[in-house]
Structures are given as C-alpha cells and as structure tokens.
C-alpha cells in the first residue's frame, strides 16, 4: 500500500510552506501593529464547552479520550478564544486585543473536495463595543488583507440587528421566525421571499424582510434601509452602521467597503455587524467576522466582543490566481573550503551580511 495522508489533510512542500509563513507573518505583524497580542489555544476542546455558545454550524472531529470525555478538534478559533478570555483573563478588566494564527479542523463528507484542516489568522477584540471598536476591527481587516498581498478585495458589511428587530416585531409564529433565519443562513433568497408573502406574517414586515436582501451600496444603502424599516420601528443599529462605514471609508484606501444587508453569516452567534471579505475570481469568502456580544456570557464573562478570521488557504488561492510570485527559498551561496573551521566561519560571515548560506564541504 502506498502511504497517503487522510482525505483533506496534506503535506506542504518548501516553496509553498515558505510562502504560507511569509503571508502569515505579514498578517500577524499587521495585527501586532494595531496593538493585538498573540494567544494560542489547544487543538482539542471539550465538545460541551464549544456547544455552550450555541449550535456549531461546522462539524468538528470528535473523539473520546481515555477518561471518556467527549472532545472535539477546534472547528474555529472564536469560541476557544472567548473561552480563554472568560476563564484565564477572569477578573482582569480588559479590554483585550487578542490575535491568533492556528489551524482549525472540520469534518466534511467526502467528494466535496474540501480541506479538513486549514489555517486561520484572526483577531478578537474583547470587552469593547460601539462605533470605534467596530470600525477598528474592520480597518484592521483591510490592513491585514492588504498586507497579505490580495489586490482588489471587497468587504461586504451588514448587520443582523435590523433583521432581528423585524422578525421580533413581526408578530409571526416561531416556525416562521425560525424559517426566516434558516433561509438567511442558507442564502436561500427564494425561500425568504416565499416566507415574506406567507399569510402568517403582516404584509409590511414580510415585504421589508424580503426587501432587505436587495439593499446594497454605500451610505445610500443604509438610508434606503432606514426608510424601509423606520416606519416599523425596526431601524436598530443603523446610525452606528453609518458611523462605522464612514470611519472605515475615510481611513482605508486599498480595497472597497460595501454595505450589503444580505450578508448574514452561517454562524448564529453574531449580534451586530457582520462582514465577509471577497476577492475577485475566488468563489468563497477569504475572511468573515462580526460582533458577538452574547458569546462571552455563555462562558461566564459579561462583555462584548468582535473579531474576524482570515482563511490562509483562501488567501493563498487568491495570490496564485492573481499571479503573485512566491518568495525565493533555499541557499543563495554554498561555502566549500579546505578547512572545516574556515568553512563555518566564512558561512557565518556571509549570513551576517544577510545571505542564506549552506555549508558545502571540505575539498
């Protein structure tokens, strides 16, 4: 039998590994330049802990250990970092600006062609809320994506607040409400429109929910949304969204920020702004994030939080499509000589001048 790696896991050879490290370093340096400090969390978590904050939308690998604890390989980093903040930083006042670059693992059925392990680089800004904190997180995402080398990216920004308010005020039954959220999470716009016209919801709430999907653009989009939902008393969080939008636009030159109310993440823990970053010619988002103010509470710490994760594999895919060159690796010089001590000394000297130098041999 020829030994292979498990499906969705792979070895990374030198040129690519060096490239991935370079990109990771550039992104992490950007995090650091905004005052974010790194943390690491264990690859394995107790499943019950991860599930405390709500249903996991990504299926983790599960294991029993010898104590019969049900464990899971971390399927994302936000929940572990929230747990860390609640547990290890308990009693400290905050706010905390934390960042990470580590692998996550997700179980997929076969034949989807998906990786089951991928790198995530992200930040969690814990214990701060409001316009400044939201804008900080998005600006940092812009800087990090630019540092990664991606050109011409778009960040689509929405909020779950308006949809939540509309659904809460709709007066419809629970089944309808659940249906609407499920259809948004599944990106099933046809189902959203079907539910919008259903008899169990008052017409003006239904049509507002369906109309939300269409609204995108700049400040004008926020105002169109306000005109749509203010008469129903559901214009929640729009002033803040506008301030965030204007703050980010005033400070970021690379990339483009678009308001898009159809952006609702498949994670159900977001409570305010949500955003996804896209690059041309790549089908999936390269980064996703938002505000999740209730997650920390599930771990026993009061406080708000926002953050994002950038997918390393997705970034690498974009860099390849746009024709970015990988970094040069391997020795630039190889030193030979008649005396071993001299070879080592000469090589050391060359390295001090900034070269990559290999030891050749004695001839």
């Amino acid at each position, binding site marked *: 039998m020829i030994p292979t790696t498990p499906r969705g896991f792979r070895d990374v050879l030198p040129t690519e590994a060096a490239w991935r490290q370079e990109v990771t370093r550039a992104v992490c340096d950007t995090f650091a330049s905004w005052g974010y400090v790194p943390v690491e969390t264990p690859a394995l978590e107790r499943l019950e802990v991860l599930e405390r904050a709500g249903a996991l939308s990504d299926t983790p690998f599960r294991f029993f250990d010898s104590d019969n604890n049900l464990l899971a390989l971390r399927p994302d980093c936000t929940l572990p970092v929230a747990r860390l903040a609640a547990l290890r930083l308990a009693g400290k006042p905050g706010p905390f600006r934390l960042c990470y670059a580590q692998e996550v693992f997700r179980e997929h059925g076969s034949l989807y062609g998906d990786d089951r392990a991928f790198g995530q680089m992200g930040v969690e800004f814990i214990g701060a809320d409001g316009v400044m904190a939201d804008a900080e997180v998005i600006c940092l995402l812009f800087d990090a994506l630019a540092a990664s080398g991606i050109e011409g990216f*778009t960040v689509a920004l929405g909020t779950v607040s308006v949809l939540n308010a509309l659904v809460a005020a709709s007066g419809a039954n629970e089944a309808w409400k659940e249906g609407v959220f499920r259809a948004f999470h599944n990106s099933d716009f*046809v189902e959203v429109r079907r539910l919008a016209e259903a008899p169990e919801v008052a017409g003006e709430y239904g049509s507002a929910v369906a109309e939300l999907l269409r609204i995108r653009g700049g400040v004008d989009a926020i105002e169109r949304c306000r005109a749509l939902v203010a008469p129903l008393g559901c214009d929640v969080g729009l002033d803040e969204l506008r301030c965030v939008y204007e703050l980010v636009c005033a400070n970021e030159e690379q990339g483009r920020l678009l308001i898009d109310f159809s952006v609702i993440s498949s994670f159900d823990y977001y409570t305010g702004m949500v955003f996804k970053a896209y690059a041309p010619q790549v089908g999936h988002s390269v980064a996703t994030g938002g505000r999740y103010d209730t997650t920390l509470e599930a771990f026993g710490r009061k406080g708000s939080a926002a953050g994002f994760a950038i997918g390393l594999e997705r970034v690498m895919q974009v860099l390849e499509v746009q024709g970015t060159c990988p970094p040069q690796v391997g020795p630039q010089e190889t030193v030979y000589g008649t005396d071993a001590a001299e070879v080592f000394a000469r090589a050391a000297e060359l390295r001090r001048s900034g070269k990559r130098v290999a030891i050749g041999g004695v001839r």
Partner: protein
Amino acid sequence: MERKNLRIAVPKGSLFADAVDLLTRAGLDTTGLSQPGRQLVISNPGVDFIIVRPTDAPVFCAYGGADCGICGKDTLVEADLNVLEMVDLKFGGCRFVVAEPAAAHGRAEASYERLGSLRVATKYPRITKRYYDSIGVQVDIVKMHGNIELAPLTGMADRIVDITATGTTLRENNLVVVGEVLASTARFIASPASTRTDERVRELAARLEELTRGQDKVKVTAGGASA
C-alpha cells in the same frame, strides 16, 4: 481594467431550451447557444456560457468555475453547497414523490409498525433524508442510480422517492403516489463572492425576477404526506 466576461453555467437536458430562452429575454447575447454542437463554452461579448450537466451547475458556482447559473431546486438540495439561491425561474416544474406498488398497499405501514423503520430506494438520498427527518420517520435509504421503480417491485425496498413530471413511468410500473416530498422548479443561483463583488450578477437576478414575476408556479397540493 477590462472586465472579465460574466460566466453563466447553463444546464444541458430538459431545462436547456427554457434556460436559453429566458437568458435571451433577459438581454444577454446568446448567439450560438441554442445550437452549441460539441462546444462546452460559448463566448459572446461580455458573457461566457458554460454548458454543464444540471447536477454540476451548483458545483461550478460554489467552487468559482462560474459566477452564476441555472439548475433545479432538487439539484440544489441534493448538492448541499454554498451557493446563493437568488430567483425562482418557475419553469422546469417537477415533483418529488413517495411511491409504492399498488398491489402492496398497507405493506409498508405494516413493515414500519414491526421494524420501526422504512426501507426507501432513491437516486436522491439527501432530499429523501430531509423529507423523512421533517415528518419524523426513521428510514433506511438505499441509494440507486436508475430504474428506481424496480426496488419495491422486487421487494428490495418498501417505497421509492423519485422525481416525476407527468406520472407516466410510475403508472406503467403499477406504482401509486403516497406522499409529496418537494415541488421543484428551476432556480437562478450564484456564487456568494460574485454576487457580492460583481454588480452584473445582481442586475441579471433582478431582470430574471422581473421576467418571471406573476407566472404560475407548479402547484402541488399539501396533504397526502404519509410515511
């Protein structure tokens, strides 16, 4: 910077003619698309039509091979991929039904009573699973690749879940419909990235919605959802 052509996945087979007609009415240059011969990609000014198997249209949209496309709702449920379901195009109507041999009336119920589980043969395991989950019936799904009608006739399964447009094949094999699973029509689908970064996808979706508004959907009456 010159804009790349918009890439649209167009399904071969029964949806093809209606899809081409609708795309033409939406104002796209579909020259040569209705008679593609052996060509798999038809490139016209501003647009590339990628001719795909209907089941592959969501795959193209999910993995960046196309910006948008057309496929049946059934394909979408079965594929279970990350694509945006934008517009119900209201053609290509078909139903997914549960059927059993007319002669075996009551046998499936008796078997379920005794074993607590039904054996169902289908080409569409996800649609079938989703349906039985929704009505709370335990089911053993046997995945087949064709001539599903044979499964209950040979005693391999209690029932089948299959697609039907007119019901002729079912009738010819003495099968009767005992449940409605899903009514399917063609959908306009799109890649999440293209939808959020390329205005042309939204514009096309809006035109298609305009063109199909007010048309009658295939009506499938509720009820009859027996196990």
